[in-house]
């Protein structure tokens, strides 16, 4: 009979307060791609913008609508992608986001939307290279 209010880990709080890499990308060399995923009913809409240089994500920024965990996860996804090769595996997936953020179970559905956006961005980056 104990009501559990939402609680946020220190990492979530810090990312939410600062929203690092939110908004547009800083200008720079390379090619621009983006990946977007949207599931409003699950409470998430995420877009990742990236600058690709030499097979690597030179820089990544996010835009997102959602709860604090979604915004923090989008920030995590942008941070983990930056500097990573576009050819490798996912730099971070929903389960690792959840673990790093100590997110409650019921938030996993929306973190998968963040993962979808990340996958889409990397797929677009790889498609760009093939062209």
């Amino acid at each position, binding site marked *: 009979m104990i*009501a*559990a*209010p*939402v*609680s*946020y880990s220190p990492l979530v*709080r810090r990312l*939410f307060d600062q*929203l690092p890499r*939110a*908004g547009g990308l800083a200008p720079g060399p390379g090619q621009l791609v983006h990946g*977007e995923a*949207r599931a*409003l*009913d699950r*409470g998430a*809409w*995420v*877009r990742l913008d990236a600058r690709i240089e030499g097979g690597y994500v030179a820089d990544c920024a*996010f*835009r*997102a*609508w*959602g*709860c*604090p965990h*979604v*915004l923090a996860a989008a920030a995590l996804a942008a941070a983990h992608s930056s500097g990573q090769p576009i050819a490798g595996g996912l730099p971070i997936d929903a389960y690792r986001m959840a673990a790093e953020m100590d997110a*409650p179970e*019921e*938030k996993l559905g929306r973190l998968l939307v963040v993962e979808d956006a990340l996958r889409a961005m990397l797929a677009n980056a790889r498609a760009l290279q093939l062209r």
Partner: protein
Amino acid sequence: MPVTDFEPIYLDHAATAPVDPRVALLMYACLQDSTLQGNPASVHAPGRAAAARVELARAQVARLVGALPESIVFTSGATESVNLAILGAARAGGAKFRHIVTARTEHRSALGACRQLEREGFTVSWLAPGADGRVDPAQVADSLRPDTALVSLMHANNETGVLNDIDAIGRSCRERGLVFHVDAAQSAGKLPIDVDGCGATLLSFCAHKLGGPKGVGALYVRRQPRPALQPLIFGGGQEGGLRAGSLPTHQLAGFGAACELALASLPAEAVRIRALRERLWAGLQGAAPLWRNGAAEPSVPGILNVRFPGIEGESLLLALDGRVAASSGSACNSAAAEPSYVLRALGLSDLAAQASLRLSLGRGTTEDEIDRAAELIANSVRRLRAALPLGAIETIA
């Protein structure tokens, strides 16, 4: 204990208002007073002294709504009052009266009681209010049936502050000799209430929304004609047999004092609070686009419900956490926040409901707090919007 080291601006008076310091002091005096420690049901001197204190409180509480002291039944809060009114009147109504009229925008306590009646075989007409949040009195009149046991509607809505026309609804109930229950938890002490004028047969309210303690409430029960009520709680015959249990002297004393204080400052406070609310609304324009949920008037003075397209409720609450204490448009007492059924009933989408914030003012609210809150909220909204995907503001509204 997650307490911040500075205190947030409290704009959640509709959830509960801080106890007035004068009321707190009086309750402490009551708790300490060795002559007031008896059970008000006992005939010895300490019991009689406690009973006299209780009756003083009953008179103060009655006066707030223009009632006779004998028509006040003390309860543990508005939730219990509402349940006693709805379940009590319906269950006492007999086999021929198995129909209830209420609205979708009622408080959970009324919804819960009416759903229980459905499980018991009653039919409930769930009226839908207009986009302004008001239940049309003509719609109420049309919904009445020969087997109607009870009409139950709220005076002021707890999320939007919008007022129902209880005078008009009361008139059509009175004409048909029907029991009419008014949930006045949000309006008692905020607006003048006269139980005779409004034609309520039953009227619920509580102490903790008007500067009194939590855990105590009242149900006004008209004496003539007197509605039949089946008690929820049986026992020692207190409260004319309608509500058993030892009467909590200090709680009732606090309730009485809070009613007296509210009544004394009512006209001036209503004007002051309404002006502060409009100042808040003006101050929030820096976060345009924004919309007001429900009609601006007629309304209870202290509630403003605002929708910020593109904003997600939980994020707005966290952005304000520790700075402004307010309620989002979701039933946010669990991690799985459900969108407000009240706002949904006004025609808002789930997302629009979650983009809403209820700001509710009270006795302690100052102009400075309002100005700071407006700025903090507008800044948070702007910050969150700056991180939105393009098109989100138009999509989520």
